[in-house]
């Protein structure tokens, strides 16, 4: 980013940070949800967008973050910060231990193995005494949406800075090389196992923090909501809709899709989900590289951009 870019980003961040002082409570709540979704989408971007590994199991990190925080606060009476750290540590441990074998799989097989991990974890947690089994845990109540908003914003800024660093570092180029051709990357001297595990662990770290913040904000978690499988889908769609493998894509995707869904939910809740599904189909058919890519190329190609996308992927 050039100096102008940094200045503009700082200005946007300042405006976003001032939201709790000027906006209505509903808008602040919408803000917290959207910031957390953008965080998990951006975290997915590291492993899905840059390394090209379509993880359908990042919800496990979110769930571990939620439960780590909740168990620390409810069962062990530890402060929130320690809980967050515990949740993040759990998620990173999980990413390392299960990431090493699972990251050897490619394509569909990796996607499905991560999905199966997510489904199995829901089952395991709903049988654990310390996690409150099926009924879940109730966290201490803390009234302060402004605090949660700023926490979520700070986390989003942190993960985005990390992705900016990735997009211009040796580490990031290694991940992109893995995405484009893993065997060639290995031949060129990229330690693919280490790079993939690092990307997975980083994604786990940020996703778990988002889960921990969400758990304390919502004050109630149970296995089905904490390990919600549809969260995976949301983060992936937001990243891809905006443009996976770019810094801005997941942010734009999260903001746009969360807003549309919010507006529609206030009208009819079913219609919102229906529309969501249609948007995904149409977006993937006509702009498979995401919105950021459309903006970049539309000026030069015009409407041909869409027809060329269509031509290159149809049978």
């Amino acid at each position, binding site marked *: 980013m050039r100096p102008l870019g940094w200045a503009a980003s700082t200005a946007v961040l300042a405006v976003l940070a001032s939201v709790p002082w000027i906006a209505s409570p509903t808008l602040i709540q919408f803000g917290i949800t959207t910031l957390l979704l953008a965080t998990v989408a951006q975290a997915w971007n590291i492993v899905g967008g840059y390394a090209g590994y379509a993880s359908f199991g990042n919800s496990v990190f979110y769930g571990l973050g939620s439960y780590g925080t909740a168990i620390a606060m409810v069962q062990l009476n530890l402060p929130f910060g320690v809980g967050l750290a515990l949740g993040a540590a759990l998620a990173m441990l999980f990413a390392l231990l299960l990431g090493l074998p699972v990251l050897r799989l490619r394509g569909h097989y990796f996607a499905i193995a991560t999905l199966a991990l997510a489904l199995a974890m829901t089952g395991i947690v709903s049988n654990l005494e310390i996690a409150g089994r099926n009924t879940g845990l109730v966290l201490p109540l803390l009234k302060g949406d402004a605090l949660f908003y700023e926490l979520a914003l700070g986390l989003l800024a942190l993960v985005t800075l990390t992705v900016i660093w990735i997009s211009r570092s040796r580490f990031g180029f290694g991940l992109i090389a893995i995405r484009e051709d893993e065997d060639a990357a290995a031949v060129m001297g990229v330690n693919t196992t280490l790079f993939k595990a690092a990307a997975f662990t980083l994604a786990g770290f940020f996703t778990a923090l988002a889960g921990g913040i969400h758990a304390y904000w919502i004050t109630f978690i149970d296995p089905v909501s904490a390990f919600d499988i549809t969260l995976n889908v949301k983060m992936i769609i937001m990243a891809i809709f905006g443009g996976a493998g770019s810094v801005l894509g997941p942010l734009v995707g999260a903001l746009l899709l969360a807003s549309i869904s919010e507006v529609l939910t206030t009208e009819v809740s079913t219609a919102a*989900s229906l529309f969501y599904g249609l948007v*995904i*189909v149409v977006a993937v058919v006509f702009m498979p590289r995401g919105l950021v890519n459309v903006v970049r190329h539309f000026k030069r190609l015009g409407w041909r951009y869409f027809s060329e996308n269509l031509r290159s992927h149809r049978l």
Partner: protein
Amino acid sequence: MALLLQVLANGILLGGLYALMALGLALVWGVLNIVNLAHGAFIMLGAYASYYLFTLLHLDPFAALPLCMLALFLFGYLLQRHVLNLIVRAPMFNTLLVTFGLDVVLTYLAQIVFSADFRVVNPGYAGANFALAGVTLPLVRALAFAVALVLTFALWLLLAHTRLGRAVRACAHNLVAARLYGVEPRTVYALTFGLGAALAGAAGDLYGVVSQFNPYIGDALTAKSFAISIIGGLENPLGVVVGGLFLGILESLTSLYVGPTYTDVASFGVLVLVLIVRPKGLLGRAT
């Protein structure tokens, strides 16, 4: 011992239905390289088709089976022909996303049209049992098991011994070569996807008889179909049967010896293990 036999019998009957559920997913995945995340939603549509044929026209669910299959075949054919053929050459992400979008659309359309209430197809003989070699078998489950086996065998015959089957396998093997030999992939892909949807329709029809359902059953069924396809491998319909039986028995045994809340842990844990040890499936060819 008697209890174990009974549990094994239940597992085998469940496994037959599981195999039929997974068959369409495995077929489409193997030939088109599309993992159809809307597969479970197709099964759900099949169950509703059977439900309305039964309640409105008083058609027996086993007699309605061909109609359910036909309806889903047409739906699947048109979907592939006019939507999915547009993205079939796109990266894997994109096909996953599009079928996920379809899954969402179908699920919520079903909720609007059919309501979220639980339904069950309940013919007069639904509660009937019969005894065989000391174990009690529910009649409808046994019938569903038999139908599932017949359909699997029919699919195997179709793939192995007909012109269409050869064209389908040719497309799975090498699309360019298949084209050179005069196969029109657009039609073959649409037919294959239609066939996969028809199998889902049949599975849905049987599912509606043995279990209650609502618009949201799809996702869990898709996940189980995945697990079975992986365990059985994608090359052969008979592998899917083994995968289905394996999962059915595993779930029944887990439910008896560990506890009913652990069945999902067992089935998805085994899936992860199989993937790690043998990524092409237990019965698939090693690469």
